[in-house]
């Protein structure tokens, strides 16, 4: 492979990962949590239930406290993207809860810096900041988008390295793998179902780094990876 081809391949792989992250976390909003929150992932539905004050616990049992940014484009984007409502509807919803005695308004902060500081120092706090914010001291949660059919969604995909020898010889093929994915989303084990053993080894190495959306139970997922020499 020429240097330019290699660079092109790296760019493609990097691009796939960036798209994946952008789709998950949103291009403008990062969801952050205090380090006491054990999970690294949260589903969109779970995040919505927390912000609509319907639950104070994550599936892993951690107690969380939602924190809001005061009005502005970031709050608008978060409301639309993650809560499925515009920011005025969210405000009306909170007022309905507060003025009927059925809940309290989440804490509001004025800026990304204040949000990061509060979340970093408050056990169980969960909030959101703009994509460019410095998130030192807090963890950034991956948010799994909802799937209408309930299947697990691939959040992080790493492309396999095409073995050079096979690529030079023009040997192509499809590898079929069975993945056991933990409840948290990591790939626990890989079983080769079919395909060229050398290609399968490369594919297996890559898929072990894949991350899926969290779920209540372990899942088994079949994937096919195609190796094709580009013209």
């Amino acid at each position: 492979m020429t240097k330019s081809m290699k660079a092109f391949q790296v760019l493609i792989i990097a691009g796939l990962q960036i798209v994946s992250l952008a789709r998950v976390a949103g291009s403008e909003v990062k969801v952050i949590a205090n380090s006491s929150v054990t999970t690294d992932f949260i589903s969109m539905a779970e995040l919505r239930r927390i912000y609509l004050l319907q639950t104070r616990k994550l599936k892993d049992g951690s107690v969380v406290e939602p924190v809001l940014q005061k009005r502005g484009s970031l709050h608008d984007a978060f409301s639309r993207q993650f809560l499925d409502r515009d920011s005025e509807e969210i405000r009306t919803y909170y007022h309905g809860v507060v003025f009927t005695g059925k809940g309290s308004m989440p804490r509001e902060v004025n800026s990304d810096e204040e949000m990061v500081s509060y979340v970093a120092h408050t056990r169980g706090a969960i909030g959101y900041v703009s994509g460019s914010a410095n998130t030192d001291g807090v963890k950034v949660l991956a948010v799994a988008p909802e799937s209408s059919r309930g299947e697990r969604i691939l959040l992080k995909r790493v492309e396999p390295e095409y073995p050079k020898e096979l690529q030079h010889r023009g040997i192509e093929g499809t590898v079929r793998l069975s993945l056991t994915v933990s409840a948290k989303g990591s790939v626990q084990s890989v079983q080769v179902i079919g395909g060229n053993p050398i290609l399968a080894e490369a594919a297996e190495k890559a898929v072990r780094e894949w991350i899926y959306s969290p779920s209540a139970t372990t899942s088994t997922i079949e994937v096919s990876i195609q190796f094709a020499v580009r013209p």
Partner: protein
Amino acid sequence: MPRWILAVLWLCLAQVGIAQDFKVANRTVQVHGFFSQGFVYTDRNNWLTMNTSQGSGAMTDTGLNMSSQLTDKFRVGAQVYDRNLGQLGQWHPSLDWAVADYRLADWIGIRAGKVKTTLGLYNDSQDLEFLHVFALLPQGVYPADLRDATIAHAGGDVYGSVTLGRRWGDLAYTAYVGHRSDSIYSGYPYLLRQWSAYLTDMGGLQYGGDLRWNTPLRRFLVGVSRMNQDISAQGTSVIPWDASRGLQPYFESSRQDWTHQFYAQYEISRFSFDAEYRRYLRDQLILNASSANITDMRAWYVSGTCRISKKLKLGSYYSHYTITDVYGGKLSQLGEPNLTDTSQPRNHIYDKVISARLDLNRYWDLKIEGHFMDGYAKTGYPAGFYPQENPTGFNRNTHALVLRTGFHF
């Protein structure tokens, strides 16, 4: 305190973005409040105990609450509410709600104290005009003059929600029992005054439940509520067949008193649609148990709202209300007529409404609303039109213009 001073005070508080929380013993206490002022003009019948045919601004209410989340599971709070609606309320403040809320888990929590009653989509938020597009909610289901009858109970709720899974949505429930206590400045005691009956105390047992299903269809909710009551009232009255003796002790009590309500709500994009049906049956022994009065109310409405822009929302609803009134015992023997023909204007109110809401800023809204009403539902139970304000009788149709503005923080 004059209303205009209150209005200015609240406007100032809202505009400066009043500090909404403070600390006590290292706990955050949140403070929220609201104020609303309305003006109603009707072309014919006077409405809601105001002299609306002259134009009336006797429509003011206000509330202030404080609450604090003491632990992950335990929260306390209280709200004071005061209103003046024509002859109702008359600036006698009341404890609107005061709760200690312990949420053990998502599926179960307990609220105790004075708790707002969950009944249909909006019973517990009917006073909070800033939550709604409409200046007045559909009066057949949420009558402003009868808020005391359903608004709260002193007792407790058990509540919770269960996630049924991605395919089935969520289910939320509330079950409650407590004591309802009506102000003597509410609609029913006021109506009785036309017959020289003056209540000094009214209330009783209230219990029921609500079950609502957030269906898997995105933002589509359906639910059902049921409320049972055992209500008594006492005071003094002129007994019709013994009027020469003047005022005598009076009491009345329930034989049956129940409400059920079915509802649905669907929100999509900038549109929201509601539909509710309520039936209220009341079988009351009146005039010291010498007579009975069976009142059967059925009401439903459909409404739609549309968000035109961030500041402007439009809405419309049709509210359909019918009532029958049947007498037994001595009143019946004396010839009190039964009112059972719901096609008559004295047995129904059909109200077509159009409304616009303008949010001047995040604290301040302004509404303008038109009502086109057929009927006046004048029976032995209140429905917005009172003989005291309409001494010369009722016209079949009433058109109303309602202006309302509110501040909240």
